[in-house]
C-alpha cells in the first residue's frame, strides 16, 4: 500500500517540477492546430500517391497541371519533415501530463490515455520511417515500409480524431488568443484539477515529508531553481519552433522545389546530380538489365489482342519524334524537370489499331521488382505529352535512365515511368 503512495508522490513531484510557462493548454492548442494541419496534408497527399500507384477500377487521375504529382509529393515529404519540430514542441507542452496522479482515474480516462499513447507512438514512428525511407535505409525496418506507412496513416488520423474529440472542451477554451490570455499576457485558467494536498497520504501514513530522501532533496533543489518570466519563455519557445521549421524547409525542400535548390544542404537528393544531370533511383545494374537492355536485337513489342508489332531502336527513332519538358517526380519526394524526346504512346499503339483511350499494360526488362509491370490508364495513354522516350536532354537515354526506351507521362509518379521497356499491351 505504501508503494502506491510513494509512486503517487513521485508522479506528483515529477509533474510539478516539469511545469514551465510554455507547457500550457494554449500552447498545446496552437501547436496542435499546426500539427493537425500538417498531418491532414500528409495524409491526403499520401492517399493521392497511394491510389495513383494502386488505383481502384473506377479511378481517373488528372494529367494537368504536369507538376501535380511533383508538388503533391513534394508537399508530402516537406510537411513530413516539418512534423519533426512541431511534434517535438507539441509533446514538450504536454509532457507533464504523462505523470498524472493517479495514472488512471476512470475507464474513459484510461481510454483517453491509451488513445494518446497510440497517437504519439504511431506519429513518431510514421515520421521517422518516412524520413529514413527518403534515405533508403530499409535495413532498419523489421517490416515492409510502404504497407506499414499506409496502415499507420489511418491509425494516426483515427487517433487524432478521437484525441480532438476528447479534448474539444479544452480546445474551445484556448482556441482564441483573447479567450486564452489576459491583457497582460497571463494564461486564463479555466477549470483545473485540484493540486494534491500538501499533507499527502504518504506523509499522513509515515510522517515522511516531501523533501525527505534523495528524490525529495532533488525535487527541492529543482524547485529552488529560478523560473523564467512567462512571457519571455513563451515567446522564446514559439520563436524557436518557427525558426526551426523555417530552417528545415529552407535547407531540405530543394530536393522537391527548385526555388530552394541553392539552400539545399540536407535534402536526400540534389538537383542536377546523377547521370545526364538527373537523379536515379534504380540503376540498370540493380535491375539486372545491363545485358538485356544493350542487346543488339532489343525490340519493343506492341500488341493489341492478336495484332502484334515489334519495333527496333532504329524503327522507333524513325517515327515522328516529339519533345516534352516534364518532371520526373519520385515517391520519395525529389523531383526535377527534364527534356524528353520520342514517339507518342498513342501513336505507337495506333500501329496495332489500339484506341488512344485504352488502358495499356507496360512491361520492363527489369528483374525482381514489383514495378516491372505497370498499368497506365486511358487519361495518360491518350495524352499528347505521354511519350516512349528515347532521348533525355538531347542525348540517348543513359542506361540508368532506361535506355533504350522508357515511359514518361505528365503528373505521374517516377516509379510508374517505367524504364527499359520490353512490351506494351493494349488491354481495352
Amino acid at each position: 500500500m505504501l508503494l502506491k503512495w510513494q509512486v503517487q508522490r513521485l508522479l506528483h513531484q515529477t509533474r510539478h517540477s516539469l511545469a514551465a510557462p510554455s507547457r500550457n493548454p494554449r500552447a498545446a492548442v496552437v501547436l496542435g492546430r499546426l500539427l493537425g494541419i500538417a498531418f491532414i496534408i500528409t495524409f491526403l497527399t499520401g492517399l493521392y500517391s497511394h491510389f495513383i500507384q494502386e488505383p481502384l477500377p473506377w479511378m481517373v487521375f488528372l494529367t494537368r497541371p504536369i507538376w501535380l504529382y511533383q508538388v503533391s509529393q513534394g508537399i508530402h515529404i516537406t510537411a513530413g519533415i516539418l512534423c519533426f519540430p512541431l511534434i517535438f514542441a507539441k509533446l514538450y507542452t504536454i509532457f507533464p501530463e504523462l505523470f498524472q496522479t493517479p495514472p488512471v482515474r476512470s475507464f474513459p480516462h484510461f481510454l483517453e490515455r491509451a488513445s494518446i499513447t497510440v497517437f504519439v507512438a504511431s506519429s513518431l514512428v510514421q515520421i521517422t520511417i518516412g524520413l529514413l525511407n527518403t534515405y533508403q535505409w530499409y535495413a532498419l525496418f523489421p517490416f515492409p515500409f510502404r504497407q506499414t506507412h499506409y496502415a499507420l496513416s489511418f491509425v494516426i488520423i483515427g487517433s487524432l480524431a478521437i484525441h480532438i474529440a476528447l479534448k474539444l472542451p479544452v480546445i474551445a477554451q484556448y482556441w482564441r488568443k483573447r479567450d486564452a490570455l489576459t491583457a497582460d499576457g497571463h494564461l486564463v485558467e479555466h477549470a483545473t484539477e485540484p493540486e494534491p494536498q500538501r499533507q499527502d497520504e504518504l506523509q499522513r501514513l509515515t510522517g515522511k515529508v516531501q523533501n525527505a530522501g534523495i528524490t525529495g532533496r532533488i525535487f527541492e533543489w529543482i524547485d529552488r531553481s529560478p523560473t523564467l518570466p512567462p512571457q519571455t519563455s513563451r515567446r522564446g519557445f514559439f520563436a524557436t519552433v518557427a525558426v526551426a521549421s523555417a530552417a528545415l524547409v529552407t535547407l531540405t525542400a530543394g530536393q522537391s522545389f527548385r526555388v530552394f535548390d541553392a539552400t539545399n544542404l540536407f535534402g536526400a537528393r540534389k538537383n542536377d546530380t546523377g547521370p545526364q544531370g538527373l537523379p536515379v533511383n534504380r540503376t540498370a545494374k540493380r535491375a539486372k538489365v545491363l545485358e538485356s537492355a544493350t542487346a543488339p536485337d532489343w525490340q519493343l513489342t506492341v500488341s493489341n489482342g492478336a495484332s502484334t508489332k515489334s519495333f527496333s531502336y532504329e524503327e522507333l527513332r524513325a517515327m515522328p519524334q516529339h519533345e516534352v519538358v516534364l518532371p520526373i517526380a519520385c515517391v520519395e519526394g525529389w523531383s526535377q524537370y527534364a527534356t524528353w524526346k520520342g514517339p507518342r504512346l498513342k501513336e505507337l499503339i495506333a500501329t496495332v489499331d489500339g484506341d488512344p483511350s485504352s488502358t495499356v499494360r507496360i512491361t520492363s526488362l527489369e528483374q525482381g521488382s514489383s514495378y516491372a509491370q505497370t498499368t497506365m490508364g486511358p487519361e495518360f495513354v491518350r495524352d499528347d505529352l505521354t511519350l516512349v522516350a528515347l532521348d533525355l536532354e538531347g542525348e540517348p537515354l543513359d542506361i540508368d535512365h532506361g535506355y533504350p526506351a522508357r515511359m514518361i507521362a505528365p503528373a505521374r509518379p517516377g516509379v510508374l515511368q517505367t524504364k527499359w521497356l520490353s512490351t506494351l499491351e493494349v488491354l481495352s
Partner: protein
Amino acid sequence: MSITTAPEPVLARPMTTTRRWQTGLILFGIAMLVVGAIVLLNDVAPKNYIGIAIWFLGALVIHDGIAAFAIFGVSILMRRASRKIPFVVIAILQGALAIAAIFFVIVVPAMLKKDIGSANTSILPLDYGLNLVLFYAGLAVVTAAAIAGYLVVAARNRSRA
C-alpha cells in the same frame, strides 16, 4: 510554480453542439482505426507485427524516457544559470540548442546512411557532416549576434532610464 492542467476529459452534456462534434469525431476516429487495422492485417505479414510493436515501444522510450528528460535536465541548468545571466539570453540559448538538436535528429541518420553506402551516387549526394558543421557555425553566429543585439538594446534602455 503552478501547474495549469486541462480539465478532465469528459464528453459534454447531451444535446449540445460540442457533444455532437465529439460523437462524430469519435465515430470517424474508430472507423479510421478499423481501416488501419484491416490494412495492417491484409498487407503486412503477422511475422512483422512484433517489429512494428518494438518500434512503437522504442519511440516512446526514446522520446518520453530519454530525450524529454535530457531536455528537462538542460532546462534546469539553464534556469539555475539565469541567476547570473539575463532571462532573454537564456531563452535565446535554449532556442539555439533546441534547433541544433532537431537538425541533429534529421541530418545525422543521412550522414550515417551515406557512410554505410547508397544504391547509387545520386542518393544522399551531399556532404551532410560538413554541412551540419557549417549550419552549427552559422547558428552559433546568429545566436551570438542575437544575444549581443539584446545586450546592446538592454544597456541602452538602462542608460536612458
